[in-house]
């Protein structure tokens, strides 16, 4: 039995008011949001097709306050949903009707910058980019770079195990988190990991990263920072056939080169991006592949010709190496705006986050093309090709009768293709509320039962972000939902995303 959203609990009259007052006693007047119009700002994350208004939103300022709130919730059987900046794309921060939202927005201090030990300690509400900003004058940076990095928070990154464009070489959030302070669902505060390596015992920290708020709330994070590379070189190559771009990716790693990033876009994306940001991409190319190498100059210099040779061997039409940082930024700008640019071509789009083994890229692309034709819906393809993370964008018009449903179904079929190829239903966006019905494509009853065993050790009442990640018999949330319709931040051009 997977835990699911609680059945409506019979509360005595006046319970809500009383509960709100108790929260206020812990957090002060400005630490609790009650007003309906203010609560609306918290009714969804960036997957705006799902909206639920919570009972209250609380804004604790310390781990002690988080703990007291969670203890109260545990005593009263009130579910809670942690929330960072709300940039998540899987509905992971979607509230529950009977519960509260615990926003970590106020816990946004950088507690310690320790350059000699290459560590930074932050509260969860600190944004991803501000970690790099705090250390860049020392020549360091924080490696995971989800494209919402100017707004998304470290707490959210930890919950989702966020990636970015440099995962093949530098790993994901899990590889850069060294310690956590966690408030467990019943309010107990624990520490796991820390600034020092190899703590004995189970890797609780490793489990917390990517647990999507189901195991507790992270209130302090120790991060590893790394030295900026000596040099960075970026090139792009254009191809007639996207299959050649895909084969180039495996060709490059097969030659022993691990690029910092490799990104593929298909013609549909190239055209919409070019129109939106003028990155200088050839609009008639079937696809382009961006390759970024970084590291010691001698290494990059030795590997660049190898990369070019592989690309030529796979029928690259044009290869352009960025001459300077400005041109490099321009190459990336096109890629980073691929999602918002789609908004210009199509009124609605639904983004998937499947992962496949790199070597299956050409095969999977062919299959996605077939499905696209079968459903009569266009699919734009943008990939973190180095790590096999695909972001197919299913284009549709929600005003056309039945098209939303068709788009969702097609997106689901694409995930099936990814799993059949030996991959995953999500590489970085998380399962959340959106993809829980697909989790069983990857995991059988024993696998899910084991995950649930673990969850129960953390949260016997199932109150921490209930109803997410695991498939449940309940489908009421899914009914009447709409696919991704664009986050206000992206529409306003404030956040880029992958």
């Amino acid at each position, binding site marked *: 039995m997977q835990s699911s959203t609680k059945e409506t609990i019979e509360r005595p009259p006046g319970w809500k008011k009383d509960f709100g007052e108790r929260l206020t006693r812990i957090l002060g007047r400005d630490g609790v949001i009650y007003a309906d119009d203010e609560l609306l700002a918290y009714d969804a994350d960036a997957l705006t097709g799902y909206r639920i208004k919570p009972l209250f939103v609380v804004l604790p300022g310390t781990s002690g306050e988080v703990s007291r709130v969670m203890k109260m919730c545990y005593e009263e059987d009130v579910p809670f949903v942690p929330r960072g900046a709300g940039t998540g794309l899987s509905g992971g921060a979607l509230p529950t009707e009977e519960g509260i939202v615990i926003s970590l927005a106020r816990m946004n201090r950088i507690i310690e910058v320790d350059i000699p030990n290459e560590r930074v300690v932050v509260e969860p509400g600190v944004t991803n980019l501000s970690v790099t900003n705090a250390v860049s004058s020392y020549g360091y940076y924080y490696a995971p770079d989800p494209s919402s990095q100017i707004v998304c928070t470290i707490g959210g990154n930890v919950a989702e195990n966020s990636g970015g464009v440099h995962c093949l070489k530098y790993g994901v959030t899990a590889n850069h988190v060294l310690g956590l302070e966690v408030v467990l669902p019943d309010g107990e505060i624990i520490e796991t990991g820390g600034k020092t390596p190899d703590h004995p015992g*189970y*890797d609780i920290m490793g489990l917390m990263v990517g647990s999507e708020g189901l195991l507790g709330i992270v209130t302090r994070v120790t991060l590893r920072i790394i030295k900026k590379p000596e040099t960075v070189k970026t090139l792009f190559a254009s191809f007639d056939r996207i299959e050649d771009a895909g084969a180039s990716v495996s060709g490059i790693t097969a030659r022993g080169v691990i690029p910092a990033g490799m990104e593929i876009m298909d013609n549909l994306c190239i055209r919409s991006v070019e129109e939106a940001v003028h990155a200088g991409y050839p609009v008639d190319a079937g696809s382009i592949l961006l390759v970024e190498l970084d590291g010691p100059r001698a290494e990059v210099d030795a590997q660049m010709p190898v990369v070019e040779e592989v690309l030529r061997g796979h029928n690259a039409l044009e290869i352009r190496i960025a001459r300077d940082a400005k041109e490099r930024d321009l190459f990336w700008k096109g890629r980073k705006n691929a999602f918002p640019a789609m908004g210009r071509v199509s009124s609605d789009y639904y983004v998937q986050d499947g992962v496949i083994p790199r070597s299956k890229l050409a095969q999977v692309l062919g299959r996605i093309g077939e499905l696209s034709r079968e459903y009569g819906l266009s699919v734009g393809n943008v990939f973190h090709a180095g790590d096999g993370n695909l972001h197919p964008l299913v284009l549709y018009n929600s005003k056309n009768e039945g098209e939303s449903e068709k788009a969702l179904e097609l997106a689901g079929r694409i995930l099936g293709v990814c799993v059949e190829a030996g991959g995953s239903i999500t590489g970085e966006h998380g399962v959340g509320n959106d993809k829980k019905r697909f989790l069983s494509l990857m995991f059988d009853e024993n696998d899910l039962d084991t995950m649930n065993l673990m969850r129960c050790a953390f949260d016997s009442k199932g109150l921490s972000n209930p109803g997410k990640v695991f498939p449940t018999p309940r489908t009421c949330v899914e009914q009447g939902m709409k696919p991704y319709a664009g986050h206000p931040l992206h529409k306003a051009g404030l956040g880029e995303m992958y």
Partner: protein
Amino acid sequence: MTESPIFNELTSIVGGENASRDPETLESYAVDGVVPKIILFPGNIEQISEIMKAASQAGVSVVPAGSGTKKGMGNKPLGADVILSTKKLSRVIEHESADLVATAECGIALADLQSCLRRKNQFLPVDPPHVPGGATLGGIIAANDSGPLRLRYGTSRELMIGMKVVRADGRIFKGGSKVVKNVAGYDMPKLFVGSFGTLGIIAEATFRLYPVPESSGTYIASFESLDDAHGAVRSLIDSALVINAVEHLNPALAGTMAERLGFGSDFNRYTLAVRIMNVSRAVEDQMKAVMDITRGSGGKGFIIGAENEEAFWHEVREFPWRSSEQAGAVLKAGVLISDVPRVFLMLDEISGKYGIRARAAARAGNGIVIISIDGDGESVINSVKELREFSESAGGSLTVREASPDIKPALDAWGGMGSSLGLMKRIKTAFDPGNILNPGRLF
């Protein structure tokens, strides 16, 4: 008890030829003096599942074992009725070189896995001790064992992307996947890294791989003082060099090693060994930079000849297990990078105080210090106590990797597990309600 029907049942699962109840064999598999009642050699995951089902129903304890190279780690087991050997699970299931990913059964010796991967010029970049002694993939994962290369590549924790495990109740589950980027469901594989066989039997694991670097170079330099040596470490870390390993050896270890390898008598000092693996030109360029940096801190040294390089790193990994006449212990401290010199000073202090001999190699860029202590029993016990107090008060840890039988009962292998201990125990209970898997080894 010895004729209890459960042992016949277990034997029938694997077949008589894959079970042993011969007294001498049983004795050789004893764990900290606890002699097992049966050794089983299952040939596939289904048999492991049957074994666990039967064992959990009968309530007999099960200790998973690879090649036994880390048998000395952990506290004395509360029971070891069944030794479940993974020896016959030694296949490479797949090596997808284009994806830089491989899956293998966990009883495979790391050395065998590496030679298979090398055919496609790839490797799993973990270099724990005991690889020549047959250390298995499963054992390395369960003990989260690592070596100097972790500076560049991390430990098996960072490299493992999927696994298949048999639970205490016999159910087989998988966690993770075969792709390097995957956030579907909990990251279950992490839970098993360092879990010491207490949560389940790891049967298969999938790892991300790296290309074998074209070239490798190691520069070794000795310093007048500990401060100078650590100053060089600081500069190396703060550079943009891509370094595979920085090992900081204390004078006692550097002296012995230099003598063994014929490096001369100049090495009875704090010594750094810096390894770079890359394309040839990048190795050459960066070796020059390493020389400049270490010279800037007063280091004197040379590039180890290609014929000696592997031998040198072999010594760094294996030195604590060289035979010693005296009682001893092998320890691992995990401290801040900046606290490594304080551990070395502490070793000097306790050497003077207790008359012990302490040889130490620090993974200077990680804050790991491997310490080998020789001395009389009481002195070793006191030394461990002081080192642990120091490490823990500095926010770190000190674990006993091995200790001679006469002193081991007096030592706690793990030290404090901090405020998450209660949760760890709840997880253990959830996975193994009967406490049959390696009971008492971890807690």
